[in-house]
């Protein structure tokens, strides 16, 4: 959202620069792009034709660096250290930030141990400082640090550049989401209908009961007219006994 807006200008800038230059000069553009503190999206630069031309030439390392920043993590860099040029500290920082974003793709709750391993950080204090200063204040991640359970609960993480296969899985997730919300809508409607039918039944039942009570009342009053001549003593006795009960 805001990150994308912040980046839009920068991306345009770098794309213009990259399309103008060629070869080794591109290397410096890429270096600048990857160390810029607010730029996290590299797929537009990757799409520029002059950058794609770097493939296979002696400057292909720059292309590899750009690809690493677009899709890779810190551990990728460490394992391919030999084939990639040395990264300046700004780039190292950015790569670590991007690593956090990648980790956030799979889990919403990241344990400190995993983070420390991925980011090459030795103690918790450093890790928390990194997360707070570099990730949360930069606005790319939002979440809660749970120190007691040593994990980082992520509520929001900015998107990284998409690998080609990811579009399919995103569409899958969206269709699942659509499906479950459709089901929910249907079940809510059923519940509403059920509530209405239940209240209808209840009203009908109540009416029936009242009708029967009326009937019985009428028949009792008819009977009473016939029995009015019975001795009054029994009704007295019953009245006194009801008083006892009430007390």
């Amino acid at each position, binding site marked *: 959202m805001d990150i994308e807006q912040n980046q839009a200008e920068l991306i345009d800038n770098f794309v213009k620069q990259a399309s103008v230059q060629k070869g080794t000069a591109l290397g410096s553009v890429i270096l600048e792009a990857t160390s810029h503190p607010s730029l996290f999206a590299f797929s*537009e630069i990757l799409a520029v034709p002059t950058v794609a031309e770097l493939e296979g030439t002696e400057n292909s390392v720059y292309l590899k660096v750009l690809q690493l920043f677009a899709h890779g993590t810190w551990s990728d860099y460490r394992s391919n250290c030999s084939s990639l040029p040395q990264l300046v500290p700004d780039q190292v920082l950015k790569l670590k930030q991007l690593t956090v974003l990648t980790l956030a793709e799979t889990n*919403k709750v990241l344990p400190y141990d995993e983070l420390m391993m991925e980011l090459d950080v030795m103690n918790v204090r450093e890790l928390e400082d990194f997360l707070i200063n570099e990730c949360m204040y930069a606005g790319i991640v939002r979440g809660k640090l749970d120190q007691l359970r040593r994990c980082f609960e992520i509520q*929001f993480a900015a*998107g990284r550049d998409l690998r080609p296969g990811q*579009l399919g899985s995103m569409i899958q997730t969206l269709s699942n989401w659509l499906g479950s919300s459709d089901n929910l*809508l249907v079940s*809510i409607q059923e519940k*509403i209908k059920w509530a209405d039918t239940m209240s209808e039944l209840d009203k009908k039942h109540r009416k029936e009961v009242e009708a029967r009570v009326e009937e019985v009342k009428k028949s009792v009053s008819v009977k009473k007219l016939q029995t009015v001549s019975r001795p009054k003593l029994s009704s007295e006795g*019953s009245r006194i006994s009801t008083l*006892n009960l009430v007390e």
Partner: protein
Amino acid sequence: MASSSSSGLTFKLHPLVIVNISDHYTRVKSQLNPPPLTSTSATVNGVENQQQAPRVYGCVIGVQRGRTVEIFNSFELLYDPSTHSLDRPFLKKKQELYKKVFPHFYILGWYSTGSDAQESDMHIHRALMDINESPLYVLLNPAINPAQKDLPVTIYESELHVIDGIPQLIFVRSSYTIETVEAERISVDHVAHLKPSDGGSAATQLAAHLTGIHSAIKMLNSRIRVLHHYLVGMQKGDIPCENSLLRQVSSLLRRLPAIESEKFQDDFLMEYNDTLLITYLAMFTNCSSTMNELVDKFNTAYDRHSRRGGRTAFI
């Protein structure tokens, strides 16, 4: 007659004004069409009055700070169809009253109902120009259009345009945003969700609540559908890939499932069980009290002849 405003003013409208105008209109309309006493009079009245929806008029007041105009409140005015003007003495009186309570509020303009701004409205507009040199005209369209997604409220300003060599005042539409404070939001929400007056029945309350949730989820559903359609189009190649949007969608999808930790399941199930338990207990209490009453009635009704000497019932 509207193009788009060029005065550069930003308008902020409070929902209270919208509720006021709609309430005014509804009251006047229902007073003109009283509920039918006999079926014959109803048909005559209904046919007549359906043709002219009554127009209501009133004033809007608020604050203007620099280039931002904020409309806070409104009150009603009487319209005199013979002179085509609003009731000025009443307006003055109301203005003084409101000034005492809200010293910062000025009369910003006037409102009316209808589907479009008309020529005769310019007359009233001009009349108000002596109070405020550039008044606003807030128009509410009371026709209910289920396909329409926005609020049927438009704000018009007046601008001096040269048409055919003659400078004329015409209405131009301006855009506005809705602005609200928390207290106002709560009260407007409350008014909007008025339950029926015999809302004691649990079923109707449940149905109303569920209907609210249903419409909210339906809106979410339609938006997800749009995203889905867009992504499918992008995959097929109909739409050029826009990376920044894809990144935003991926970050959004990463937030699903929204709540799925073990702790949530525990808490949720615990609360669910508690609710079920309480309902069960309430049912139990109900049953036992009904049973008690039944036994009392039984005793009263059938022990009539065996009750001598004050023996109490065995329950």
